[in-house]
């Protein structure tokens, strides 16, 4: 017998002792053992050595040798492989390699195999301590949300309190910036958004789904009654029944049509955490069964991706800008900030809580001049002050052209920069001066479009042309409601062109408003959620860049080439065909590849597995989605949701998911990775959080990971899906894959729950964004995009465009479609396809509705659910026992319609009707009305899809026309409506 043989035998012998020992010590483990009575065999494939374990009524015994008919069997090729796998803290790559190369085989039913894996894995995690004892039976855990990391106080298994994290004396010291004689340092704590503070009310919401449900008139073996989706009620069923129905429907649909007939999509956001996010477990599962993915449109970036990309590249940021170290540059050098369609106090940098707010207080302190351009007197303008200019929605690009006109005619731009760092300026200049179309784009010309006095635009242009100015285009660069208008591509393009005229990257001349670009440590690696977590997906996530090398995992590949554009789900279902353009961050030309549904040789979608937040309040012209649900074309609909709201009420089977407070996860404050590379530079401190399982899942709800695992067990996929691991095991793997172990042990991290990443010394801070570009040096900012092949000259020299420069005249558009009237090769003003120029429609619906991202809720989170957020009167207004969505209307327009503050009104057009509460306010100009998008509730007063909604889904009203034809983008902010007082009675 070799030493390795002996080692194998000893390990197998010791295993039984270890299991007994742990069961004695840990009652939870003893309970686990009592779950199954099985015989589990571990052996070498050639049967030369082995031992089997008999689990019976919670007791374990074992015998040497090979059992004739074990329930499960784990067989190793040889003792060498066995030695590498059968040890604590094994290298997971060894396990994956052994599995892929058939050096380890597993036999037996999936649920028993998984149970045995859990039995083995728990041996090394039992007894790990986590959380901080606060006395009086209170334990303080840590978690992370879309609105900032939090402490979670738990007593008797119940959350009693959720607070921001205040650092202790051991946590890293903050950075400081000395500017204009003042030392600026952020406080040693994290901030949170309103919806983060409302989490307790959402966890314990009366709308929580606590057990699986089936629509009462849905019979998978008989009448399915699809026409009653959204109408008939639900009955409670067991998990087994629910999972069996879903698994058998997956098999049936694949058998009858192929995997392409299964469609799955997600809301744009999920509860926080790298493992539970929609780009992680969900993809791992669906890639494993094969599916037609719903391709998301770049819903917050639209104009930037379909427009600005062609001027400066940045496809990996979907057209957004570099942001490095702009906080320091702005504080030191900038003289004016122009906020254009930018309301960071409402949108919080998506995930940045109020981190930027703290810094914007410094703007006031330094007396830096501010201008706000937005049809709505937004929260940032209201708080910071400065000049407010309110263009009519969708006309911003006319104002931008007029600004360029003043700069050109009054010689207020950077000639040298334009000559050396850009191409194609002459063509644009000639267009602006009117040489192309006979119309000089003067401030007076723009006044007719925007409604903003020419004198104000002239004054702004002069001020801007003479001061070092930061342009905050969107709350973070690459966002902004203006980019979701029919003219959104033109606006985003104009923003790039304006900055190119002023010397983008020179000291004090850059993009931003202190929301991004703090001097935190960008060299410390911890993955963002868009790096795909445990998805194994190298195509649909950013995993290939870093995480895959650091956390090897079984790759997953969807074999279905068909996809459905998210904005056209209804057409795909109801009409059976549609087309789309891809969101491809790899390269500029990626967006030109038009695709069709159904794809050649693929079936139409028959089963829809919906997961996460509802589209009714977040996509466009959403009565369409309701109608699609009620179509016979959809044979089966399953919805995996935390709350009973929105689209969940249109499913045949509902699977109840738990919140992130009820499961394990790991994630960093505002680190999304992917399209917003280094997005944590909007935080004052990098904070990585071990998201403790603070409480047990409510009712029978389960984590998304666990739900998919249960389905995987029924499809023979449990081990490839899970790699035999629990969520906590995956957390540990992600910890090991990051730079955390260089600073903190797993034991300490698990216990304390968070880590503040130390900042680099001042001399090692990141260089300022675009400074390298302005000075014609190799790129020195710490991002690895564009991809090497997209550099024209040498690697690292220039931008992603063909010329390597900012292109006023876009070479990519010249190649693709130089005559596209909607997207000309230079940025032009083309009036919106829905707005004051659409005369007939404008007569009928004379109010321009904008519906930007909400302030107090996030996507559909925070809203509805009987959440505390509903108590905020600027969010919803309580009238006659119902919380109504708010629409803001100018006093002049209100008076003309006999509408008073807090009156119930009907907002309508040909697409639908929404009942809202009026807020009469001077915050909107006459002719413009404002209501946020993203209502979580959809409450039709009559037939779903054909009646007024008093839930507040403003997107019932918004147009489904693509922002430009050759795109997959929404233009929700080009929307004409009429408003009348709602007298009641109309709605029962």
């Amino acid at each position, binding site marked *: 017998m070799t030493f390795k043989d002996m080692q194998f035998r000893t390990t197998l012998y010791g295993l039984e002792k270890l299991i007994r020992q742990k069961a004695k010590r840990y009652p939870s483990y003893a309970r686990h053992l009592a779950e199954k009575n099985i015989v589990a065999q571990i052996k070498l494939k050639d049967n030369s050595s082995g031992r089997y374990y008999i689990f019976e009524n919670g007791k374990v015994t074992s015998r040497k040798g090979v059992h004739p008919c074990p329930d499960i069997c784990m067989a190793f090729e040889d003792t060498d492989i066995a030695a590498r796998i059968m040890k604590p803290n094994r290298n997971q790559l060894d396990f994956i390699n052994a599995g892929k190369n058939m050096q380890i085989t597993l036999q037996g039913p999936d649920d028993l195999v998984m149970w045995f894996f859990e039995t083995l894995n728990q041996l090394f995690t039992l007894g790990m301590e986590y959380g901080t004892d606060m006395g009086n039976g209170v334990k303080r855990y840590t978690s992370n949300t879309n609105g900032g990391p939090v402490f979670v106080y738990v007593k008797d298994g119940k959350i009693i309190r959720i607070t921001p994290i205040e650092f202790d004396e051991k946590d890293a010291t903050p950075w400081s910036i000395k500017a204009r004689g003042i030392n600026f340092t952020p406080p040693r704590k994290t901030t949170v958004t309103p919806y983060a503070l409302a989490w307790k009310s959402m966890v314990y919401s009366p709308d929580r789904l606590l057990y699986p449900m089936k629509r009462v008139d849905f019979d998978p073996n008989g009448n399915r009654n699809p026409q009653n989706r959204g109408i008939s009620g639900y009955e409670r069923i067991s998990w087994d029944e629910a999972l069996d129905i879903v698994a058998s429907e997956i098999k049936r649909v694949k058998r009858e049509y192929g995997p392409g007939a299964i469609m799955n999509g997600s809301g744009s956001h999920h509860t926080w955490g790298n493992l539970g996010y929609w780009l992680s477990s969900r993809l791992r599962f669906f890639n494993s069964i094969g599916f037609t993915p719903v391709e998301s449109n770049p819903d917050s970036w639209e104009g930037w991706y379909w427009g600005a990309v062609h001027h400066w590249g940045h496809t990996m940021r979907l057209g957004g800008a570099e942001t490095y170290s702009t906080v320091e540059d702005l504080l030191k050098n900038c003289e004016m900030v122009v906020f254009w369609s930018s309301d960071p*106090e409402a949108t919080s940098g998506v995930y940045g809580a109020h981190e930027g707010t703290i810094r914007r207080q410094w703007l006031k302190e330094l007396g830096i001049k501010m201008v706000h351009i937005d049809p709505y007197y937004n929260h940032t303008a209201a708080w910071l002050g400065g000049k407010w200019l309110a263009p009519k929605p969708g006309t911003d690009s006319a104002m931008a052209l007029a600004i360029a006109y003043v700069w050109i005619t009054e010689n207020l731009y950077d000639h040298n920069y334009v000559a050396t760092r850009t191409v194609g300026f002459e063509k644009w200049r000639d267009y602006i001066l009117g040489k192309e179309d006979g119309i000089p784009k003067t401030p007076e010309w723009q006044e007719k479009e925007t409604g903003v006095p020419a004198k104000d635009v002239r004054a702004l242009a002069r001020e801007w042309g003479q001061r070092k100015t930061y342009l905050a285009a969107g709350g973070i660069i690459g966002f902004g409601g203006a980019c979701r208008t029919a003219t959104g591509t033109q606006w985003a393009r104009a923003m790039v062109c304006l900055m190119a005229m002023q010397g983008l990257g020179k000291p004090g001349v850059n993009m931003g408003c202190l929301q991004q670009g703090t001097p935190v440590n960008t060299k410390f690696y911890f993955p963002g959620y868009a790096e795909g977590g445990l998805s194994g997906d190298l195509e649909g996530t950013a995993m290939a860049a870093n995480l895959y090398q650091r956390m090897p995992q079984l790759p997953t590949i969807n074999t279905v080439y068909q996809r459905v554009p998210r904005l056209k789900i209804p057409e795909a279902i109801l009409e059976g065909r549609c087309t789309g353009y891809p969101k491809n961050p790899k390269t500029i030309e990626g967006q030109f590849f038009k695709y069709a549904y159904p794809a050649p040789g693929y079936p139409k979608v028959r089963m829809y597995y919906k997961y996460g937040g509802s589209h009714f309040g977040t996509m466009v012209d959403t009565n369409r989605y309701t109608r699609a649900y009620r179509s016979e074309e959809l044979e089966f609909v399953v919805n995996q949701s935390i709350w009973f709201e929105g689209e969940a009420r249109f499913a045949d089977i509902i699977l109840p998911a738990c919140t992130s407070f009820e499961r394990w996860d790991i994630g960093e404050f505002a680190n999304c990775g992917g399209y917003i590379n280094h997005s944590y530079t909007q935080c004052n401190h990098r904070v990585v959080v071990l998201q403790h399982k603070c409480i047990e899942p409510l009712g029978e709800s389960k984590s998304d990971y666990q739900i998919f695992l249960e389905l995987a067990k029924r499809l023979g996929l449990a081990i490839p899906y899970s790699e035999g691991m629990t969520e906590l095991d995956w957390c540990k793997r992600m910890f090991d894959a990051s730079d955390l172990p260089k600073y903190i042990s797993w034991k300490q991290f698990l216990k304390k729950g968070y880590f503040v990443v130390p900042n680099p010394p001042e001399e090692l801070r990141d260089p300022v964004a675009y400074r390298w570009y302005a000075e014609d040096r190799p790129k020195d900012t710490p991002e690895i995009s564009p991809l090497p092949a997209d550099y024209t000259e040498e690697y690292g020299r220039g931008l992603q465009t063909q010329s390597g420069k900012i292109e006023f005249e876009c070479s990519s558009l010249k190649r693709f479609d130089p005559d596209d009237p909607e997207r000309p090769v230079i940025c032009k003003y083309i009036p919106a396809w829905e707005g004051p120029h659409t005369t007939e429609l404008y007569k009928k619906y004379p109010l321009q509705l904008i519906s930007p991202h909400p302030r107090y809720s996030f996507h559909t989170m925070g809203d509805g659910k009987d959440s505390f957020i509903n108590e905020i009167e600027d969010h919803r207004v309580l009238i006659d026992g119902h919380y109504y969505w708010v629409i803001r209307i100018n006093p002049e327009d209100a008076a003309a319609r006999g509408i008073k503050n807090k009156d119930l009104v009907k907002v309508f057009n040909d697409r639908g009707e929404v009942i809202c509460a009026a807020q009469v306010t*001077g915050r909107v100009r006459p002719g413009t009305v404002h209501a946020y998008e993203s209502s979580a509730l959809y409450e039709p007063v009559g037939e779903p899809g054909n009646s007024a909604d008093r839930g507040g889904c403003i997107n019932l009203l918004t147009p489904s026309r693509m922002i430009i034809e050759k795109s997959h983008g929404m233009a929700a902010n080009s929307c004409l409506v009429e408003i009348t007082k709602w007298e009641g009675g109309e709605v029962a």
Partner: protein
Amino acid sequence: MNKRYYLIYDLEKCIGCHNCMLACKDEFVDNEWPGYTLPQPRHGHKWINIQRIERGQYPHIDVKYLARLCLHCNNAPCVEAAGGAIYKRQDGIVIIDPQKAKGREDLIKTCPYGMIWWNQEREIPQKCTFCAHLIDQGWGKTRCVQACPTGALRLEHASEAEIERMKKDEKLEVLDPEHNTSPGVYYKNLYLYNKCFISGSVAIEKEGKTECAGGARVLLLHNQARIDEVLTDCFGDFRFDGLPANSGLYIIEIYFDGLLKKSVEVDLKTSLNVGTIFL
């Protein structure tokens, strides 16, 4: 020297995020703090209530917020009326005794600020406790203060002399002083709530175009006296703030290139944007 707790709220720093109200709900809804208060009902109560204040008219408007909560007054009418059901602690915090106050709906009306709420289900009056249960555990701050991102809310543990100094240095005021209750909550920049502004824009014709008249000298006269003077900014805009509502006639005089170019009379009722004045 005896110190007590004061809450200071700065209207200029408040962004209206409502984190204070939400933190309050997080702390008190579904949680009972024995000896301090029963749980806050899920709906209806706003122990700290954020009121939106809008002044002026498009496009010269101003949107700020006012936090309203129990002011933990030194001469609290509620304490006086409650016969022991409401008491003031040594540290200034006013507490409603959840047992003794049962059934005392009459106490709601005793607060001139309307900051006592009736809990219908439990039949008790309730209000802000300054998070006394946390203060007594050594927290050092209330939940609303902790959740405030900008420091618009802050808790001070100060002596009489210290608070007097803060009042002077930071120009702190009390809300509706006519109630004479000697509140323990002070407001900074309260003019944004209880005063008005007059604003406008000045424009001139130059080479056939309308231009903003930046740098114009604008005087404000009231009762024949010059009470304020500002220069217009690059957009030709001016604003006089801190004026009492319904304070009668004002005259705005605009000087440009050293000459009196225009004089406008307004009757000030509430904040007023006089619009564009062409010279």
